[in-house]
């Protein structure tokens, strides 16, 4: 399949799932009415449901899915390792830790930007430390070990914050928040996260050529004109900004960055540059689908998006481990 056809197919799928997400929900609105309420100006309840409940939800699912898919594909390309994923290697967990600290200390309530800033710092610290620890020459084992260590540390510190929390209700609220969800978010959340997510993605998208060259190793890539230090910096900032901002408004949503590049890689001829755009589109599609599914499977229960992606993603991880085992 040529890249253009793949992008077109994935783009069409994303648009279809976006519309499906807009037209699914507890308020029973016929599809034509729902879509017309979205575009026409009126004070009716349909317009309010569409613009203030469903639109931000669909937008966040698409944005966060795209950033997770893209981040996963870029990290895998850079580390030349199919197991690299922001959620799995602790970037999401440290972003969540940053966000929890911001919420608990009241900073998030005082300054709207404290929440994404704290999550972003957590993600940046984790990404930097991971790249330093595992390194581009690091084996799958080093990376996973470093990631497990980071996830464990972040989880322990998050538990500590919750443990010391004065109010059990606040703690319960945070636990639910951490499961990851885009339900009940407003356009304010979108406005808060979108600039960081889009900026982060803009940093990662131009890295394709360098990631292709890295297929042959660092020295070969450098000899073909790739500026490795600049690339690493763009990658770290890009992943931290997009994953950090996404985690700040939606909690930790795992496995998207693992599953999407893994599924799409054969369709891209295993070329890292083609995989970047494909994974961004695929990530948006997957998260929109998963979020719509949470409303269809248990409409009366508040099923969390992060729980669903983990249920889809974990078996993929088993599959990858199985394949790597066969190769060793």
């Amino acid at each position, binding site marked *: 399949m040529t890249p253009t056809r793949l992008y077109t197919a994935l783009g069409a799928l994303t648009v279809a799932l976006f519309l499906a997400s807009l037209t699914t929900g507890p308020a029973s609105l016929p599809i034509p009415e729902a879509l017309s309420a979205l575009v026409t100006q009126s004070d009716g309840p349909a317009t309010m449901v569409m613009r203030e409940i469903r639109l931000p939800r669909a937008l966040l699912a698409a944005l966060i899915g795209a950033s997770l898919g893209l981040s996963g594909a870029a990290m895998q390309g850079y580390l*030349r390792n199919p197991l690299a994923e922001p959620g799995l290697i602790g970037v999401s967990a440290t972003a969540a830790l940053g966000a929890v600290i911001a919420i608990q200390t009241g900073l998030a309530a005082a300054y709207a930007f404290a929440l994404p800033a704290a999550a972003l710092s957590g993600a940046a610290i984790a990404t930097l430390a991971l790249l330093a620890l595992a390194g581009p020459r690091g084996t799958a084992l080093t990376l996973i070990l470093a990631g497990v260590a980071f996830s464990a540390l972040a989880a322990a510190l998050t538990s500590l914050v919750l443990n010391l929390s004065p109010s059990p209700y606040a703690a319960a609220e945070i636990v639910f928040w951490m499961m990851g969800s885009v339900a009940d978010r407003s356009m304010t959340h979108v406005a808060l996260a979108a600039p960081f997510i889009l900026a982060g993605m803009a940093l990662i998208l131009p890295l394709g050529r360098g990631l292709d060259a890295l*297929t042959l190793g660092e020295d*070969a890539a450098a000899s073909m004109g790739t500026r490795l230090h600049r690339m690493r910096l763009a990658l770290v900032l890009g992943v931290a900004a997009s994953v950090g901002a996404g985690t700040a408004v939606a909690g930790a949503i795992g496995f998207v960055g693992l599953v999407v590049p893994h599924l799409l890689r054969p369709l891209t001829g295993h070329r890292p540059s083609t995989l970047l755009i494909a994974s961004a589109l695929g990530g948006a599609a997957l998260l929109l689908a998963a979020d719509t599914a949470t409303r269809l499977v248990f409409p009366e229960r508040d099923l969390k998006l992060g729980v669903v992606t983990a249920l889809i993603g974990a078996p993929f991880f088993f599959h990858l481990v199985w394949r790597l085992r066969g190769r060793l």
Partner: protein
Amino acid sequence: MSLTLANLSVTRQNGRETLRGVSLTVTPGEFIGLIGPNGAGKTTLLRATQGLLPATGTSSLAALTPTQRARAAAFLPQSREIAWDLTVETLVTLGRTPHAPSEADATAVTKAIAQMALTPHAQRRATRLSGGEQARALIARALAQETPLLLADEPIAGLDPAAQIATMQLFAQLAHEGRAVLASLHDLSLAARHCTRLVVLHEGRIAADGPPEQVLTPQLLSEVFHITGSFVFTDHGALFTPTGLT
């Protein structure tokens, strides 16, 4: 375009000097065999030449911007990494990375694949090829870069005899066409047979530099390589054969 190294030195973080004051000029038309025992500094020299290692002294190549350098010299590293299941054709196309996309890309790729006798394998996954075929695909990638200078770190290690001779002949041909090749080699017979010039590295220094017959003297072989060997003059020209240990 020629390459000039002046007093190039590399000191590792542990304080060990792996390259000591190497000065060298490579001019178009030369196929230089970089020889020396393991640990003599061959890889360090090839990497420092391109600025891939922090070094003191000067290298005309390292002074260029990354893109200029990539258009001036192609490098074939010793480690043969192929991270993803690319086809041979896509892998060789990576050699076009430094160049602005043009119609010359497809021509260069097809030619490089043919030069390494990989045309029947062009659509196969590079990771499924044998070790020797992978090595040839990686050489083809460096050829597709179409640079005046080719730096290759042990390009023929692990190849079968036919591929070894074919590669050496190809490099000699590139030099004949006005390009320059600097390749580290362990096979002294092949080096003596095909290279226009040999540079011997020993403990980070240049121990000898010149035409094969003048470089591979009994004294140098004994001091640097701890072997004996001699030239046999045949109808095919002067052939060098290692004969034993000293």
